[in-house]
């Protein structure tokens, strides 16, 4: 096999398929999103029969894959670490019930965090569920451990977590593929009537039977624990125990600083379950790991609890160097201050910008804007997002804020802002509550027909699946009307005047009818081929004589294609990135921005 230059996520997809996984689900989330698209590409190229599709959210993804694994198809499910929070219920329970074939959960953590709400450590969650964890340190290991996870799950009849992190998943290396793609026929079986009585108790267990399942789980874990060995590198008096990406940084630093005689480095492939080890020969034992003390607490070592390892932030090679300094092994070099980079903005031509500008124009700066997870979070740059908690929370927050102010007898406009995919994910349930309790706030659904933030994955409104099969598109308006919302309007936000009118109508409706209203702003994402080719294309220019240099177009609209020339105190269009959408003509108070 040739050596392929793969990302960690691509390597995981290769490993899973070669180990026989033929059913994979998940929900997109950086840094986990590339596993399923790679899986889809491989099965297509190799002509393998498999199901590889996105689910509506992580809980559903987990349950669908778990169901298939009970039907004896080898399965996997992928998500980012906060996605695991959503899937926690089936995750915890699946440990008790166990698997009939292999099931691997790939959960990707984001110490830093680079693009997440928390720095939580998925390993802790697996430990809480009593599910074994494999924690790769390199891209090669991501591939190897994916295969190992499938085998471990199959052997012990237990779901296995493959925990990756941003640096492994988005790292790239030349990977040696050791296996083949076997196209063996799939056989599903679950309910075999002749012995169903003996098996049924496991799948529909009563609380008393749950206790028996828990005992069986403990036996599996004890057995896996016995096989779990550490790997030792170098030979020194102080023992450092590590797993994941951090192991590779420590290994490199020990070689670079010539600490081979001072330190022993122990590598943990499987951070849970760990047996007791005899470390009495070492003067100190320290765990260095991301991002919480999983090894440290199990093995009772030094680390975060005695202040050697920082309790927050990524353990980058620089931080590992500082830790070695704190242990007294090296002199710490000078710290280098890193200049801040330009903050990200919504893309030029993004319909979210003009939609949310219209919302701000009608509802004003005093309204509470409950935002959500997606590109449109960036609207906080121009004041149309006040809160971002977790997937779907914009709608629940809309309910909570409005009800709180109603209770206190205070006037307060509340607007929830949510994207199409996030709405499907967890936005529908809180909206049902809001209808039921008649809470008068506005929910804006920004529908660009794609999961834009994580790399333009398909959504439920698509008519063709990733594998080219016809699928039934889910119509947002039907869902919203179906739960009893009486104000549902759909607008293309590029029609600015219509947007403003509909927003005013919604505002009036909220006051008069005292119930929730929904506006769907629909416009394709300009970051997709279809979106960009369908977009209008004007030649936009700033008429110098009319521009007063008020900077409103920069501060209140923030299109990256509008730049400010300090020398002549005027705005200017950067034609290298302007897509010619023409939305900015609605912004300028002196009508200096024109279509020519």
């Amino acid at each position: 096999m040739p050596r392929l230059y793969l990302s960690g996520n691509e390597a995981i997809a290769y490993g899973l398929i070669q180990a026989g996984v033929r059913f994979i689900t998940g929900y997109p989330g950086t840094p986990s999103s590339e596993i399923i698209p790679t899986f889809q590409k491989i099965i297509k190229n190799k002509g393998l029969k498999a199901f590889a599709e996105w689910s509506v959210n992580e809980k559903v993804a987990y349950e669908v894959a778990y169901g298939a694994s009970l039907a004896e198809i080898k399965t996997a499910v992928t998500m980012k670490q906060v996605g695991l929070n959503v899937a926690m219920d089936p995750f915890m329970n699946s440990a008790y019930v166990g698997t009939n074939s292999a099931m691997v959960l790939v959960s990707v953590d984001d110490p830093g965090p680079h693009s997440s709400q928390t720095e939580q450590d998925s390993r802790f969650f697996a430990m809480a569920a009593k599910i074994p964890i494999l924690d790769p340190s390199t891209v090669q290991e991501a591939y190897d451990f994916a295969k190992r996870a499938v085998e471990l799950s199959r052997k012990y009849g237990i779901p296995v977590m493959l925990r990756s992190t941003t640096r492994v998943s988005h790292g790239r290396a030349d990977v040696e593929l050791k296996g083949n793609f076997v196209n063996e026929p799939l056989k599903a079986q679950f309910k075999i009537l002749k012995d169903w009585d003996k098996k049924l108790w496991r799948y529909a267990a009563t609380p008393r039977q749950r206790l028996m399942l828990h005992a069986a789980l403990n036996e599996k874990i004890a057995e896996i624990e016995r096989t779990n060995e550490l790997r030792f590198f170098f030979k020194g008096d102080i023992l450092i125990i590590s797993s994941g990406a951090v192991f590779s940084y420590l290994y490199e630093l020990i070689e670079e600083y010539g600490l081979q005689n001072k330190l022993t480095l122990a590598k943990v492939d499987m951070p849970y379950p760990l047996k007791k080890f005899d470390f009495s020969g070492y003067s100190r034992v320290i765990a260095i790991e991301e991002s919480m003390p999983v090894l440290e607490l199990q093995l009772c070592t030094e680390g975060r609890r005695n202040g050697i390892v920082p309790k927050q932030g990524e353990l980058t090679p620089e931080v590992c160097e500082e830790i070695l300094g704190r242990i007294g092994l090296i002199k710490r070099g000078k710290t280098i201050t890193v200049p801040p980079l330009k903050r990200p903005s919504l893309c030029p031509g993004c319909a979210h910008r003009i939609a949310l500008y219209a919302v701000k124009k009608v509802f004003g700066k005093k309204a509470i804007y409950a935002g959500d997870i997606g590109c449109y979070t960036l609207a906080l740059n121009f004041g149309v997002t006040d809160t971002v908690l977790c997937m779907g929370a914009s709608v629940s927050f809309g309910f909570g804020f409005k009800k709180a102010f109603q209770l206190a007898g205070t006037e307060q406009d509340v607007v929830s802002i949510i994207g199409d995919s996030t709405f499907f994910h967890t936005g529908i349930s809180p909206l049902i509550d809001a209808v039921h309790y008649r809470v008068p706030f506005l929910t804006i659904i920004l529908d660009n027909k794609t999961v834009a933030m994580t790399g333009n994955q398909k959504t439920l409104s698509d008519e063709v699946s990733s594998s080219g099969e016809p699928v039934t598109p889910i119509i947002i308006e039907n869902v919203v009307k179906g739960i009893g919302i009486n104000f549902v309007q759909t607008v293309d936000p590029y029609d600015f005047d219509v947007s403003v009118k509909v927003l005013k109508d919604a505002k009036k409706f909220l006051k008069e009818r005292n119930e929730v209203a929904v506006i769907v702003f629909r416009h394709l994402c300009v970051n997709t081929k279809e979106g960009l080719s369908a977009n209008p294309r004007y030649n936009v220019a700033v008429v110098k004589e009319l521009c007063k240099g008020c900077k409103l177009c920069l501060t209140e609209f923030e299109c990256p294609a509008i730049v400010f020339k300090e020398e002549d105190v005027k705005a200017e269009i950067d034609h290298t990135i302007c897509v010619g959408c023409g939305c900015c003509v609605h912004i300028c108070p002196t009508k200096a921005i024109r279509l020519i």
Partner: protein
Amino acid sequence: MKLVILGKGGQGVIFFSRVIAQASINKGLSVCSTEIKGMAKKGGAVEIQMKIGEGMSGMIRRGTADMVVLLSRELLEYAKTFSENTFAFTDDEIQTARASVPMRYVNTFLLGVFVKKTKLFECQDFINILDEENKKSFIKGCDYVQS
């Protein structure tokens, strides 16, 4: 060799780095890298840290890179946190690239300039792996340095 490659979204930074990686792998060298590109399309920077023939992870500590290649000169101050040894393209090189090849091949033209000027790699190793259009552009970049 520890190499950092910096640029902005849409400049073809990722492709630029992957060709370097593939050329090195074909030489039998190990390559590991880390890519930061999440916000690239939203005006953020694209950053690739790459170790060729050494190391276990692609992560490079600030101040320890052998060279930083800049596709966008506005990132110079940031680049210097990795190494004082920075390689940026001259205005003349960028203008010639834009004038002589279609926009989407500007990065391979500049790659040709980089390979030829720094002599860190051999041009032939790149010519062997590029497709026709990229190859033409790469060779133009190499030839530009010679002329």
